[in-house]
């Protein structure tokens, strides 16, 4: 219990799309869970599509001592908005602690309907400045996840000036884009027999040639993850080396991206970060242990990245311990 007590100043939060993913994952490392998939309404078992699943899931997670958030569609069309309203009401009455919001229209609906559910601005909300975060705060946001491109130095300003909590992607695939049409299907989603199974399998987009002589593996080539209605980074964001620095910069909310990953990924990556956070918060000397490194390497098939946080290309890794990681291309 000592690690949990010492972590009260921080929050490790996991995204989980469906009841099956929730049941398969060891949630003990996590303080909070964000339910649902914001990319695609049709994702199998999507909590954000089935409001009826929320009361049971929220109650059991609360009983386990976790905070519970519910996400909402990232780019809802007008025709999706009645569903979004039902989802918001269901999340509020199920007792969820916040609604994750990517779309400004959804944020406005939340305020206009007077629904007492705080908003957490998600990765696609395009939070880049403290002033934008303040506008969102005035609409009911209490937490923001700045866009992937925002550096740590910029996040510190937002954290200091905006009057909202700042969440950072600590580990996992970076959301790089959302698409209108599913790229894994030939026909319309409603009738294509490939839906919803197509995105359960892994699909990687690769370009360029593998590294030649004198190049590290993967250099000169790109890899992205295609999840149908979203494009994710091929490499895994990883900040485990930099946790003391992030804490010093005022960051307290650390997210592990669990969407489109295995249960083992969610469970074991979470455990490594839980230990790392406890260590970093203890104020004792901090170093990445070989065990954490081994766990993260095992689950990151294309290596690590975190360049955005340091004002560089997103796919670059800045650090001295986990650089030059795996790459399959």
């Amino acid at each position, binding site marked *: 219990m000592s690690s949990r007590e010492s972590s009260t100043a921080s929050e490790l939060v996991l995204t989980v799309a469906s009841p099956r993913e929730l049941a398969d994952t060891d949630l003990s490392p996590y303080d909070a869970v964000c339910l649902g998939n914001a990319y695609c309404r049709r994702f199998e078992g999507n909590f954000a599509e089935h409001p009826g699943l929320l009361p049971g899931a929220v109650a059991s997670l609360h009983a386990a001592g976790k905070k519970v958030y519910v996400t909402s569609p990232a*780019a809802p069309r007008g025709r999706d908005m009645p569903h979004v309203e039902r989802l918001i009401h269901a999340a509020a009455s199920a007792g969820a602690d916040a609604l994750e919001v990517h779309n400004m229209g959804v*944020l406005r609906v939340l305020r206009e309907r007077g629904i007492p559910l705080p908003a957490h601005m998600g990765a696609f909300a*395009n939070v880049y*400045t403290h002033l*934008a975060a303040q506008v969102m705060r005035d609409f009911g946001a209490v937490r923001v996840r700045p866009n992937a*491109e925002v550096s740590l130095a910029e996040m510190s300003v937002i954290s200091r000036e905006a009057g909202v909590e700042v969440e950072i992607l600590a580990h996992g695939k970076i959301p790089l*884009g959302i698409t*209108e049409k599913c790229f894994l299907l030939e026909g319309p989603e409603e009738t294509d027999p490939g839906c919803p199974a197509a995105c359960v399998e892994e699909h990687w987009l690769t370009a360029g040639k593998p590294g030649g002589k004198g190049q590290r593996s993967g250099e*000169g080539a*790109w890899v992205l993850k295609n999840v149908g209605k979203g494009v994710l980074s091929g490499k895994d964001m990883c900040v485990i080396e930099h946790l003391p620095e992030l804490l010093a910069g005022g960051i307290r909310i650390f997210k592990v991206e669990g969407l489109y990953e295995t249960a083992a990924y969610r469970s074991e990556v979470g455990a490594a970060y839980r230990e790392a956070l406890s260590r970093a918060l203890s104020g004792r000397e901090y170093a990445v242990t070989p065990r954490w490194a081994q766990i993260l390497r095992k689950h990151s098939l294309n290596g690590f990245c975190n360049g955005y946080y340091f004002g560089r290309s997103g796919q670059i890794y800045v650090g001295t311990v986990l650089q030059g990681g795996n790459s399959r291309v």
Partner: protein
Amino acid sequence: MAELLASGGTVEMARAVLDSGADAVYVGAKGWSRRRAQYEMGDEEVIASARYAKSLGKVLRVAFNTLPASHEIPLLLAKAEKFVGAGVRDFILTDVGAMKALSERFPGVQIHASVGCTIVNAEDAWFYKEAGATQVVTECRVDREEMRKIRQEVGVGLEVLVHATTCFTYLGRCTMSSYTRQEWRFDDEGKNHFLGSPNRGGLCYRVCLTEWDQRRGDGSLEAGGLVLPNLAYFLVDDIPDLLDLGVDTIKIQGREYSIPLVGRMVRFYRDLIDSYLRDRSSFRMEAWKERMAGIITERDAERREKTAGLISESGLSA
């Protein structure tokens, strides 16, 4: 009546589009718009172009539509002050915080919420209206019913892009380019140009348009030589509907294209709009489609060349 708005990538292009029939021209302040610096203007060029527009009774709109860093907001306000002092009253923005700051500092200015805001539903339009926007650019696939709601129920100006790209992802919500390559470059004024980020500095390497292989989890090839769909479009059939709907601005993007081509596009839309408005009942589309085909061939050739250069610049070893 709908305003025809066209691109001014240079002083020459700004003049050309106004002379070819555009009612208004938009230009990027250097480092501050969704194109790289070579298609943007220095302050004096902006002011000279604004003066030219005014002499014709037309409008110049300044794009400040990148997503800046927090500490750059004072730079933006200082630059805006200079332009407001020179008579510019129209701005294009993306960052909702910058929008609010600008509308509070300069009451009465016109603020257009940029295509980078990714406005996909009428509630989005409400949000931006409340943050200070007087007009909104809708995302390129928004349907007529949503446009009608925005125009009539939300009561904010409605702007539609008729020549632009659809993008593989939602424009304004994509960081595929900067994930691949991003460099921070600061100009003399201290503005970061965020090279490689279309949202922040305007340069997009268009990595979606390279050839991709799709592989399964075990690394085996699933499909080879894929190009992620990202089409440049050129709306023609929709123009009568858009005019009937009461769209406030019809916008032609094109700062990266050659001046003669942009001039032809502007003249095409000017003539099409005027012809339809003169006599809606007897208007026939066929002849316009023929005229359009020639322009598209030319546009596609310029775009292909540009795209190949950008992908190569992004650092992918072929």
